[in-house]
């Protein structure tokens, strides 16, 4: 058992898979010699050499196209898109290429690749380097979408993503890179499409992802301590495939649902979860499902403004309390 930061866990996860399978290769901007702009890939170049860990030009389309071409002809590439905001400049590959090739070719072309990307706000980077865009990928048939909230899940889910035969977009949260957590020794391989109940409770279910998971947990503790409200917190971990069983089962016990999303409100992933719960667990609901989201605005840079926008511990706690007690 070792205590690792989230960023160390990224390197460990990649190393674990590269060691296991020589077909796993890694490319991206500044990822090799520089060890990544977030220092999440330090040591990989030294360990695996220039043929397997390759710096690229600032060419996001070339990075993803190359990853796809390599994947469809036998490699298992991991590509890094430095900031998830840059997905917008190479969205074609997500929306039209590696997501659809299997279907369009009637199963002939397979794209087992992973796109890792730094996602999310709270780092004061402003509107073009702070977005949570996991919902952009969630809406595309053919993609899988994963977003770990802690170092242990980074290793386990990254391994699962690399071994998955479908293209997986792996959203690392920039504001979690420094967070530490216990990671067991040895190989860790998780399962995609499994949510995790990170706090058991009876009064309400709070569903969260990535940075919102620690915040939801803190809010749950606060609600317990100050108001005697006992919340269950579920870390979704994987938006596609989506573990609806865990969520529905929990709502079946608590009868209230809250989603905490960093996405701006419109078409955030919580909307899909609320829709499923409202449909299938309608007669379990003892109050309206509530979405706690970033407002439908671009993110500002100033800390005081950004903190107002992204769901905070206080906002989560207040929203849950008001909804349960009013």
């Amino acid at each position, binding site marked *: 058992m070792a205590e690792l930061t989230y960023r160390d866990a990224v390197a460990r996860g990649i190393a674990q898979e590269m060691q296991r399978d020589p077909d796993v*290769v890694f490319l991206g901007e500044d990822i090799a010699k520089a060890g990544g702009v977030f220092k999440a890939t330090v040591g990989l170049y030294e360990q695996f050499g220039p*043929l*397997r860990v*390759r710096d*690229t*030009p600032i*060419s996001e*389309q*070339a*990075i*993803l*196209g*190359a*990853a*796809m*071409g*390599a*994947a*469809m*002809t*036998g*490699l298992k*590439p991991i590509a890094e898109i430095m900031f998830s905001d840059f997905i917008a400049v190479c969205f*074609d*590959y997500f929306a*039209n*290429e590696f997501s659809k*090739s*299997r*279907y*369009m*070719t*009637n*199963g*002939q*072309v*397979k794209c*087992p690749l992973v796109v890792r990307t730094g996602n999310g706000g709270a780092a004061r980077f402003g509107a073009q380097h702070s977005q949570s865009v996991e919902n952009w990928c969630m809406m595309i*048939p*053919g993609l*899988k979408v994963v977003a770990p909230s802690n170092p242990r899940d980074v290793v386990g889910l990254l391994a699962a993503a690399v071994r*998955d*035969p*479908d293209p997986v977009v792996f959203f690392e949260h920039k504001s979690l890179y420094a967070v530490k957590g216990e990671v067991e020794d040895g190989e860790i391989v998780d399962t995609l*499409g499994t949510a995790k109940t990170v706090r058991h409770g009876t009064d309400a279910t709070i569903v969260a992802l990535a940075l919102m998971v620690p915040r939801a947990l803190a809010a749950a503790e606060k609600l317990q301590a100050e108001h005697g409200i006992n919340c269950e917190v579920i870390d979704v971990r994987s938006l*596609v*495939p*989506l*573990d*609806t*069983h865990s969520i529905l089962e929990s709502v079946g016990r608590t009868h209230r649902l809250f989603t905490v999303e960093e996405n701006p409100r419109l078409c955030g992933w919580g909307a899909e979860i609320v829709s*499923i719960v409202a449909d299938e667990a309608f007669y379990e609901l003892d109050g309206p499902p509530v979405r706690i989201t970033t407002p439908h605005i671009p993110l500002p840079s100033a800390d005081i403004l950004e903190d107002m926008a992204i769901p905070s511990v206080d906002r989560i706690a207040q929203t849950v309390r008001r909804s349960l007690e009013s």
Partner: protein
Amino acid sequence: MATKKTITAESTAPVITVRDDIDTATRLRIYRSIFEIRETEQRAHDLFLQNLVKGTVHLSLGMEAIAAGCGVAMEPGDLTFCTYRGHAHTLARGVPIEKVLGELMGRDIGLLRGKGGSMHLTSVEHGVMGSYAIIGAHLPIACGAAWRAQYKGQKDVSVCFFGDGTTNIGAFHEALNFAVIWKLPVVFVCENNLYMEYTPISEVTAVKDPAAGRASAYGLEPIIGNGQDGDEVYRIAKAAFDKARAGGGPSLLEFKTYRYSGHSRADPAKYRPAGELEDWRQNRDAVKVYRQRLIDTGVSEDEIASIETDAKQKVDVATEACKASPPPPAELLTTDVYADGGWAWRN
């Protein structure tokens, strides 16, 4: 071998030498391919007019020699990446005609059983790694396939076909730079048919030769060939493929050519100056040019006719097979979205 008249893109009647560096068997393969593509594309056109081909089709009528010359120059195992105008390149790798026409017609017999359509022809077993309908997207993808060959020490070459219009999109430039810095075994083949969709390419491009004019920016040799001459295509392509296979890195080839039909079936191509099409058809038609080449190199009229009869018959047989094929079964609608074979995104 005697000096003979032949044709380039630049003029209708220059004189160059017919060289005997290509053996007759290869020439016959090239002609068979040119002729099959011509007949199949013409059939696709006719089936469209009979409403048996739905949606849209982008034909390579007039441009056959490039796909054929490159196709014959490729080795088994080499990979083809082409565009939505990709019937020709798919056929040139030996994909059966009925699989191509059947896909256009949305029948179960089709290459993709109707799930892809005209713009997405793919046959991995023939090395046709896909037809890509988003301009430029497949150049980086071809780089990736070439990277795999380089990484694994495999000897195949990735060949990526695209039109003149593609040279103005970002992915083209990203891919060229990428291929050069990684010295990848990839060959980019620009089919310059003088029009990007509906607009003359010269009106929207900073340089005279849209691909070759950019080559030097990436440290590549500018290579221009006559896309109407199967021999010239074959020679240039073979040299580039050999270089890539030998570890010499990428090449960028530009072939001048002309498409006889509009951009797609919805385009009547009214933007072309009067007489232009007729000029190309009469004086530089890929079939005519190569037929004459065969005669000039001593192939008998009978042998040529037998190739032509055989190709026409294959197209007829394929057409009937497609008409007889049922549509794809309904259960195909939701297969192969994910690797488990289905579409499920949740439990």
